């Protein structure tokens, strides 16, 4: 009977060890980024994170940047449909170009390829560029931005991604 209890404990403990290891990596990794909460929350929301290495976590983050960028483009589309002030309209169009041509067509694919193939400095470049583009778009509104939360989101995620990627160098 005693040995059964012992074996039971071994089984239970072993199972907890496996789970602890992956949760550990997420926390350890996120501690080294400028936004721990956002990092943990984002990574935990994706099932891949539970068995990913650091490069894998970076890819999860880059995918989230992509998703947020697509959402931003949709929002820009919606806003353009509401017949905004001409100046806002021009800036919205400019932002759409940044998100479409730069972030989605260039930064994200470049970063993903770099992470996949093990050449992380180009992924760092891609993530930094995405942050710069999002900031650039926000600044172009000179304080009257209708998409601040979207830009901030892309920018913050990109900075977290960049910090994670830095760990690979």
């Amino acid at each position, binding site marked *: 009977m005693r040995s059964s209890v012992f074996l039971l404990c071994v*089984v239970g403990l072993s199972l907890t060890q496996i789970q602890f290891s992956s949760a550990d990596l997420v926390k350890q990794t996120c501690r080294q980024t400028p936004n721990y909460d956002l990092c943990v929350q984002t990574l935990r929301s994706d099932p891949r994170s539970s068995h990913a290495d650091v490069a894998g976590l970076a890819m999860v983050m880059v995918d989230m940047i992509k998703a947020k960028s697509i959402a931003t483009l949709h929002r820009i589309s919606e806003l353009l449909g509401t017949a905004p002030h001409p100046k806002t309209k021009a800036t919205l169009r400019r932002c759409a170009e940044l998100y479409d041509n730069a972030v989605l067509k260039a930064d994200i694919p470049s970063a993903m390829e770099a992470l996949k193939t*093990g050449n992380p400095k180009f992924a760092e470049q891609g993530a930094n560029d995405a942050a710069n583009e999002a900031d650039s778009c926000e600044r172009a509104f000179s304080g009257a931005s209708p998409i601040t939360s979207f830009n901030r989101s892309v920018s913050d995620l990109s900075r977290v991604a960049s910090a994670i990627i830095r760990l690979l160098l």
Partner: protein
Amino acid sequence: MADPNPARTFADPEDPIIAATVPDHYTPLLDGDPPAGENSRRPLKGFLVILSGLVLVGLLMALIGENGPSVSQDSQQNDLTLNAPAESTNISAQFLEPASRGPSAGVSEKSFRLHSGVRAPFPWSNTMLTWQRTGYHFQPEKNWMNDPNGPMFYGGWYHFFYQYNPDAAVWGNIVWGHAVSKDLIEWLHLPLAMVADQWYDTNGVWTGSATLLSDGQVIMLYTGATNESVQVQNLAYPADLSDPLLVDWVKYPGNPVLVPPPGIDDRDFRDPTTAWYWPDGKWRIAIGSKVNKTGISLVYNTEDFKKYELIEGVLHAVPGTGMWECVDLYPVSLKEDNGLDTSFNGPGVKHVLKASLDDDKNDYYAIGTYSLESGNWTPDNSNLDVGIGLRYDYGKFYASKTFYDQNKQRRILWGWIGETDGESADIKKGWASVQSIPRTVVFDKKTGTNILQWPVAEIKSLRKSSKKFDKLEVGPGSVVTLEVEKATQMDITAEFEIDKEALKRIGESDVEYSCGTSGGSAQRGELGPFGLLLLADEGRCEQTPVYFYVAKGTDGQLKTFFCTDESRSSLANDVDKRIFGSTVPVIKGEKLSMRILVDHSIIESFAQGGRTCITSRVYPTKAIYGAAQLYVFNNATSASITASIQTWAMKSAYIRPYSSHQES
């Protein structure tokens, strides 16, 4: 202005006060997730034995499987210190800006050039962007380029290959571009040499090097990223050795010839070197890698370039330097001025070992001895070891590679010069990156501790109208216009003498000067800064000073610094604006001399015959085309300087696609 995000709960890292006090997030290791998997069934002993056995095996496999790049508290510390390179920062003397948030927020110092959100991004016009394209530096017609590959002289032509993205102005889909030249200056673009058409390079045809065998064979070794993203080394050779242009290439059917050895990560194994012949009758190559944070160079030997043997130990390793990319090892003569074949070794020779550090995107070299007995390379000075000592170039210069030019018996260096502007501008202009003008490399006999780099002599063929400004007296705090024909494409040599009285008078400084942390050309000292203002408009709203700054250090010795100041190079805010540079040794009796190649958005500067070099990318918005001017300046507080300057306007180089109608 209302706070657009009053609900932000995390500290604003752009506020320097907060950034300094935000604690590192530290959570104790065992918290959070509740233990899982309580077995609630009535225990059966035998079943449990089997189950626990399986679970333990599974646990073991999971722990082994998670041995990816390890993340430790130690590496975090190292990352933060490596994130703050000594010689460059975004501080601008002119604008009161918060210090860049880089290292304190765990972010690379290099990354964020946009400062706190007050100014709108710059509206680049097509005119401005078109101007940025160089007149005489190698670049493909469009899209992205990075590392130089396989440079060599064959069949009467200089061959140059390069990492290229045929689809976009950012890195990705990498294949090998190819061009040929008779003089390293005028180039003919050829078809792509190699594309990603095999399983062993489908994810990237990456960097490699050429070895020329005495029987006329050409061996090309390169890194392929396989379909499973493993980095392997592959062999390729020309399809037709009788074609001097070497247009077509064949990949060895038995590829890959090398895969990552045990203990080396699948993603830390790339950039094979040119081979050198060893006394045992075999060839040797080096491949850079890392173990944790120690940068290393592996060595292999081979007889046929198809089968390899890993040589025990490493060629060299330096802790804390991270991944070594684009390793290069070559001999330099201590006595002669010519270059040496890569296989050369013996008395009167030292070996330069070089690595590109992934961590800080700079190229470092060290001079040492490569023993034919032990097969080890040892630095002359371990304080100046690879990755912690001298750099080829103190500006933007990476992934460089040398080759032995048997045509003129020179050792020649190529370096990748990336963009430092905003990436959306690169996409708009449709291209990114140039190569440095090829440089000869020789041992610096006067110092014994440096190499000298100098633009190849063939560059002089582009010189046209020359102007001389002899013994110009430039008093403290003055600027003198130099009337030249075309300030955007120039070759300039300049010599400076500081007035001797001022040199005697100079007091000691209690603070050590450093280009990167200084106020650039605006920070006045007794004996500097003085030099040239390049790409400056008439009102000097935009200007790129390249200057000397002489000071007496805390040890009472005179020290000379050579810097390039980008802080006012452009009115645009979405470009890097750093101040780069380093000390430059000045031998007694030497005048202070500089040579500068100005070519639109690239400036290559060489001090004391190439003892210290700085390459800079600049993107002026006003000081372009005819509005760009040249000045000599002296911003010292007490010393006068005498400057002798010679300038040449430079023709553009013929760099075009090859067509069969052309003569060779």
